[in-house]
């Protein structure tokens, strides 16, 4: 549990966590979520739909970039986003001592 010491000085082994501790964790989670969802919206609704014509001036291989984002690129980004969230969230939960590793 060494990682818990590095965060707030809240005792984490007593079973319950304090409200302040919980709020800090939840704020960090919301921030992470907002950042990842911004990327999600940017690649799909942004690059593939709204700014498509601009991006189509560039190309990836033989395909216009905006078109490629709409058909393949955004899907690759979605996969990366979920795994990134999974890893970063796990780190966050360990930091706050509320991960479910031992459950």
């Amino acid at each position, binding site marked *: 549990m060494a990682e818990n010491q590095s965060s707030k000085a809240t005792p984490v082994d007593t079973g319950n966590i304090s409200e302040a501790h919980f709020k800090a964790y939840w704020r960090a989670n919301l921030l992470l979520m907002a950042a990842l969802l911004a990327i999600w919206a940017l690649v799909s609704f942004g690059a593939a739909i709204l700014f498509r014509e601009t991006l*189509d001036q560039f190309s990836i291989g033989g395909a216009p970039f905006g078109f490629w984002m709409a058909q393949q690129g955004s899907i690759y980004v979605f996969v990366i986003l979920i795994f990134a969230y999974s890893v970063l969230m796990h780190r966050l939960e360990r930091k706050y001592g509320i991960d479910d590793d031992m459950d």
Partner: protein
Amino acid sequence: MDILGLSPELFWTALFVISSFGLYIGIAIWARAGSTQDFYVAGHDVPPIFNGMATAADWMSAASFLSMAGIIAFSGYDGSVYLMGWTGGYVLLALLLAPYLRKFGKFTVPDFVGDRYYSQAARIVAVICALFISFTYIAGQMRGVGIAFSNFLHVPIEGGVIIGAIIVLFYAALGGMKGITYTQVAQYCVLIFAFMVPAIFLSLQITGSPIPQLGLIGNAQDGLPLLQSLDTTLTDLGFSAYTAGTKARIDVFAITLALMVGTAGLPHVIIRFFTVPKASDARKSAGWALVFIAILYTTAPAVAIFARANFIESVNESRWSDAAAAGTIDRATLGEGETPAWFYNWRDTGLLDAEDRNGDGRIQYRADPETNEVTHLDRDIFVLANPEIGGLPAWVIGLVVAGGLAAALSTAAGLLMVISSAVSHDLCRKVLFTSMSDTQELLTARLAAVAAVLVAIYAGINPPGFVAAVVAFAFGLAAASFFPAILLGIFWTRMNKHGAICGMTAGLVTTAAYIVHFKIGFSSVVMGACAALAALALLVLFFGTRKTGQLPVLLGMSGLAGIIAITGLAGMLPDFTMGSAQSWFLGISPEGFGAIGMILSFAVSISVSLLTPSPPDAIRTMVENIRIPSARKHVDHNSAASNQ
């Protein structure tokens, strides 16, 4: 050439279909369910990667497997709405819903809605949404199963639907979620293999690369980019360029959003995340699910351009032969420049037709209906006929059929699970007969599965008109009802039962009305059917929320709806004409209206919640504990001051 007296195609198809069905039945016997825990959530112990595979199979229906590549091949850029819409929803699921719903730890989506909103009425509204969405969806799957059987195994559609339904029923009723999960893992393997084999062959032929995904950005054997040549060919024939798209931008935006949010709100997808051991596994599992889905979804756009290019090259300006069409000469002898044998073969199934109308002995494929001679072209042809178009061996065709069936059956099973648990667990155990024991509940669940299958068989044989609008209905309604209610339930502690009930109802009714108006039209019979559904819903609400000493308002309303239903079904109400595309709201098609329904549902939920009392403190504690992945820790409100 015949094997055991059957043509090679028929032999291989029968072999693959029968052996894959045998495999599913074997797994079902191995994974029997002993408890309600096993039956509803596979004992909460499915490893994330297996659950990811099962989710992928659950998710990818006959439409993804058979129709999607064809739709993209026809619509080019416009087809992107399905590619992004049906994958982007997993980001929402993984980030916003799955881990919290898993931590909540119950069996069904109405479970969450009913508990979080401390209300039987909310639970019943959720049950009604879940049943309506799942029944629409399952009817489409059963129809797909019937068509696969009738086209390939020469079994009548009725027989095909019944065989498929019995197989699904066997492992759903026996094994519940546990049986379904492990059969879905096997079905995923069958379907992805069946989709990739022809795609890889085609990719090798056309681009020389074994990775079909690269075909979208690659060059053809002549060194020119494939997409560029396809754009030129299509515009020469009078079609719009493949990369251009014809839908309005706002419609593309709305459809993509509705499909993404609808995906995240579909009950048969959500319940898959209840089967993993813990909250962090739900996130991983969503990631794996999307990986497995992405393998097919990134291949589909490449298959689409291969198929469209191949089709034009081999059919356009080819020499037509009436003798080959009538089958009086051996089609295998057709040579270079002649309409290929597969064209005549598929013409026999009715999915494809051509007519040399200008009598020049050649087939012209054009956008202009005046000069176009390919008179009928079913979009499903592109995946089904790909093996023949590419000249692949007969066993590949059998594989594709088995894959299509795996896709349809796995989705049907997931939906069946939602229907059976909504009826047995949510409706019977939690609302109508609260004193039920576990054993009785399990029996009810199995009986409900049987009843649901009978309805699905009927709907598969006599598809009701709304099956054609299945995508609009299922995704639109999930987006407009479940998604806002679940999301606000997790992220906004102030959200109360009044907000949830009003929000779900407003989203559901508005979206359904819009889709019916523009896809089916409010005729007297349709209005009667809607009123009958409303009467039934109100009756269940009455029995579920009955208190002594209260005026039976709901019962009265139900009676009134019943009278309207009878008048409507008797044809005595006025018929309204179906809406046309010109009068779409903001130019948004019925498929995209779920996005508007969702916004409406959010707005109604939030305003009604703010105008009515806060939820009880116990609910706030419940929501806070859902937000903590660890099962051992709770928020301690007393210690707040000392740590700030």
